[in-house]
């Protein structure tokens, strides 16, 4: 197959990972970094080639009757469970995976480049690049997966590389616990994913995406009317699989790991926790969308979870003071947009526009959120702090960064012609098409998005002019600014890509036409949000404080992220550790072990008890002797009678 070179996008990073991981220590830091970046550059080129060939190549029968075909480029058997249940490692090219290829390789390459400057001089630089390669490998493997189990495999690998990267500064307790938390929470979600896979494969007897999605109705019907606790097993399976996605994509209530994950190096946050890994959940649902499409219950669950998370995260983002946390909550909120969009994307409604919108938003969001994070990284690099209070008036010191950040904010707020406007608009269209409730809800959230992003923007670049002392912030080096510029440009133009031509739920073409009522409203709402932020945060003033005082309770709750972390803390420490593990350990030591020891002790004391028999006196001996003999006889006689 012509596209088989796509495999190279998997092989190069994994090779780099092993290479840098094993011999990296011996290389100089510079060599390691450059090697990693170059390798990533090659990967990017190949990925682009593959994606573009897929989208624009005409001669391979890729498009039949206006439907883009899914191409399985490679499928190697990796592990055979039964005749039909086989894990294969392969490469599946279809619109969404090709799109993801572009997203991942672009952002990853930018981050590699950026890190050359950002991570300069850090301890374990080689290790950092090794992990980045590992991540890229796993993420690409995830999107190119041909079957659900391959996806699960890479899903786990992605989780681990995220764990390793979050915990990169392993001497800091905060980083360690954040990485642990991230891993465990996603692991918990993955449990759902795994069980979902088990159920799904049990009833459909296949892991393969192609066979699962080509005829979803058949797959569902093989499950028959099997139900479990009132719901059909398929709903269970799909919901559980979504749970996996929700964990990775930080949906409420499994979102708690993401803000903490910001303890990792900022480029990592940009790559993993903004652009790529966190959208894996969206991707998962999109991948299995044909199945979800026939199960209204599962879709409803997705919608509700998505919509609630979007609102919740936006609300929290409004009051955070750590810039990376704001961005993290904004990410959660945006991903929730995508999820909601998928949830409302029933094919019957408006040609399933939500699916396309979701993917579109995924694409644009990856670009501008990566941009925002990289900007934030540059800022943090300059002021050595994550806290807003340590910033202000930075526009004079870091002009490029300022512009780039502004572009990002505008994009996320949904101001035309920036990328976010187009994709978000489609989402709102889809939401309104589903029900006005969701439409209004999502519009409000969009407004909040504009508000908190501009709050952030003003707090960083305007607000006041603190005294930076002798340590004046300055613009970042070229390796860091270039990615900013590049991504900024992408964020501006990406919205004009005719996305509907490439990615739709049934892989047929769909022409986007702006629905100006919706678009208009959303622009207005966004502008209101921006205006509000401008009023409150452009110059240093006390409005925010007064407001905060006014709604003290609400503010504190939001600031503490509505105590979700504490709740988890409570569950894990007080319930799981103290109420389950400790008692079990106690039970083990005292009861089970105790029983064993007791057996020994009883034997011992029995031994002590019987020693009286051995009195040393011949007469006692004989007494026992005769009694024994007579007793044996007597008992036997009694038994005989």
């Amino acid at each position, binding site marked *: 197959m012509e596209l088989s070179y796509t495999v190279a996008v998997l092989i190069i990073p994994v090779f780099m990972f092993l290479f840098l991981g094993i011999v990296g220590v011996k290389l100089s830091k510079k060599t390691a970094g450059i090697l990693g970046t170059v390798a990533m550059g090659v990967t990017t080129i190949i990925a682009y080639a593959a994606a573009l060939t897929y989208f624009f190549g005409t001669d391979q029968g890729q498009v039949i009757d206006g439907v883009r075909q899914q191409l399985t480029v490679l499928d190697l058997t990796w592990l055979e*469970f039964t005749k039909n249940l086989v894990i294969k490692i392969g490469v599946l090219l279809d619109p969404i995976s090709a799109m993801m290829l572009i997203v991942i390789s672009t952002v990853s390459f930018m981050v590699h480049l950026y890190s050359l400057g950002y991570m300069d001089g850090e301890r374990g630089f080689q290790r950092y690049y090794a992990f980045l390669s590992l991540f890229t490998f796993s993420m690409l493997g995830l999107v190119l997966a041909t079957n659900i189990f391959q996806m699960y495999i890479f899903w786990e690998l992605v989780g681990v590389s995220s764990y390793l990267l979050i915990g990169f500064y392993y001497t800091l307790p905060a980083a*360690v616990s954040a990485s642990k938390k991230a891993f465990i929470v996603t692991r918990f979600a*993955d*449990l759902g994913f*795994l*069980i979902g896979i*088990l159920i799904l494969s049990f009833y459909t007897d296949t892991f393969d995406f192609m066979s699962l999605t080509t005829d979803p109705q058949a797959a569902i019907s093989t499950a028959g009317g099997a139900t479990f606790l009132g719901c059909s097993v398929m709903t269970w399976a799909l919901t559980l699989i979504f749970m996996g996605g929700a964990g990775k994509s930080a949906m409420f209530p499994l979102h708690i790991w993401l803000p903490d994950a910001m303890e990792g190096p900022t480029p990592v946050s940009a790559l993993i926790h903004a652009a790529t890994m966190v959208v894996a959940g969206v991707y998962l649902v999109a991948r299995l969308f044909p199945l979800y499409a026939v199960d209204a219950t599962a879709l409803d669950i997705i919608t509700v979870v998505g919509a609630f998370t979007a609102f919740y995260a936006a609300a929290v983002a409004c009051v955070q003071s750590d810039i990376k946390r704001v961005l993290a909550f904004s990410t959660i909120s945006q991903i929730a947009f995508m999820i909601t969009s998928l949830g409302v994307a029933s094919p019957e409604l408006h040609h399933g526009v939500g699916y396309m919108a979701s993917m579109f938003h995924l694409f644009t969001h990856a670009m501008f959120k990566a941009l925002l994070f990289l900007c934030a990284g540059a800022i943090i690099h300059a002021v050595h702090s994550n806290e807003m209070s340590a910033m202000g008036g930075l526009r004079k010191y870091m002009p490029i960064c300022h512009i780039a950040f502004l572009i990002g904010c505008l994009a996320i707020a949904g101001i035309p012609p920036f990328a976010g406007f187009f994709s978000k608009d489609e989402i709102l269209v889809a939401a309104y098409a589903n029900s006005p409730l969701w439409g209004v809800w999502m519009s409000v959230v969009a407004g909040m998005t504009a508000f908190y992003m501009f709050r952030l923007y003003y707090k960083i670049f305007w607000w006041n002019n603190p005294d930076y002392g002798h340590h004046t912030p300055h613009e970042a080096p070229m390796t860091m600014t270039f990615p900013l510029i590049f991504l900024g440009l992408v964020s501006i133009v990406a919205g004009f890509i005719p996305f509907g031509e490439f990615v739709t739920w049934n892989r047929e073409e769909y022409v986007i036409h702006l629905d100006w009522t919706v678009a208009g409203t959303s622009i207005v709402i966004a502008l209101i949000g921006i205006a509000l932020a401008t009023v409150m945060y452009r110059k240093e003033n006390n409005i925010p404080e007064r407001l905060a005082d006014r709604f003290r309770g609400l503010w504190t709750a939001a600031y503490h992220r509505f105590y979700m972390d504490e709740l988890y803390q409570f569950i894990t420490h007080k319930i799981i550790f103290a109420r389950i593990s400790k008692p079990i*350990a106690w039970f083990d030591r005292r009861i089970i*072990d105790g*029983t064993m020891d007791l057996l020994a002790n009883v034997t011992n004391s029995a031994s002590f008890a019987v020693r009286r028999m051995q009195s040393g006196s011949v007469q006692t001996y004989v007494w026992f002797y005769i009694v024994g003999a007579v007793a044996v006889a007597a008992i036997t006689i009694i038994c005989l009678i």
Partner: protein
Amino acid sequence: MLGGLALCKNMKQVRTVATVGASALMVLAIYLVIAFLGERAAGNDAEMLFTQGAMTWFEPLNIELALGVDGISVVMIVLSAFIVFAGVFASWKMDPLPKEFFMWFCLLSTGVFGFFISIDMFTMFMFYEVALIPMYLLIGVWGSGNKMYSAMKLTLMLMGGSAFLMLGILGIYYHSAPEGGQLTMNILEIAQNNAVPHSWQYFLFPMTFVGFGVLGAMFPFHTWSPDGHASAPTAVSMLHAGVLMKLGGYGCFRIAIFLMPFAANELAWIFLTLTGISVVYGAFSACVQTDLKYINAYSSVSHCGMVLFAILMLNTTAMTGAVLQMLSHGLMTALFFALIGMIYGRTHTRDIRKMGGLMQIMPFLGVGYVIAGLASLGLPGLSGFVAEMTIFVGSFQHADMFHRVFTIVACCSIVITAVYILRVVGKLLFGAVQDEHHKTLTDAEWHERLSTVTLILAVAAIGCFPNFFSSIITEAAEPIMKLFA
């Protein structure tokens, strides 16, 4: 043709030069695999290969010195060879009485190898006990901590298990042939006769299963494991957790399930419940331990519970998973114990509260530990994932709702595993250095590296190319599981 006995003989002669012995063993084991695959490729599809022309040993009881291997025993032998090899290097500087140590160590390995190649219940049982008793001295003499108590407890509990086992074996023997037929100890013949009356199976199945289950650390007979492992010297912990506990699982299916399919089917639910409890219970217990070896021991309880759990699912996939899990757990737990031993050898404590930031001081060991941890919590690309997934998928294929629900319960353990592994890794390796004295410690030496790398490579090999192993195992598991079709 490579008879398995050659392995043992070879071991014994070279006991003092343990390295040569272990390496030779490994070469032989690998040669065995190649020969085995060669035979299979040549179209020899007998159930057991390389059957030594069954030599009658004790004629009155029709005990034979019957040896042979199928896919499952082949992989187990390879596993053992690897761990023995690594164990020898891990105990390079054994002191005092190195000669005796290696002598007992070799006896232990002899028992293990003998067990895996026997297809006669008597020889199997004999090797089983041969493998057990050196443990007492190995722990008692070279162990640490509360070693006498642990050694005694371990030996007595395991011997208690073997008491049930002996009764079970004799019971099977006396029902091994239809009325008037020639009684036999040969497992294959018994399986062929399939003559054990159902009523007796109800009695004998629990006997044998519990007998082996004790060694497989089945709840509630697992308490020897934490104490024993905690007190044992490194190489012994490695071999014990790595191989000896597998004897339990191997025996469970080779004798209990293979010979008494009826009772296996009928009584599976009882033992499933117990093993299911082991899986979750072990994991929870591991969460709150503070001694590295205890953590690992409880984790072994959990993982080995998984082995027995899968065996009881009575289908080929789960069975394959069980054997993979034995392999995987064997290797990674050996790796764990090796690393713990090395760390303990330096810091002289195993209390995770007293250590921290070791990654900075001994990066090699730290990385090794992380890899072992990741293998344990089932990272794809390492062996744990392959094994657990095979088990889960296989178990979930069971037609019975009860089994499937239990599978889900067992699945939960992967989360708990992640919790305790990350807890340890976080406290032990990451963070700030807790004890100033630790800063001067050195990283691994060459023999320690060799031992660690061998195991890591093996773990990764299974993780990356599972189908190679799984096809060998599946093909061996199929004839056994045909009994339940």
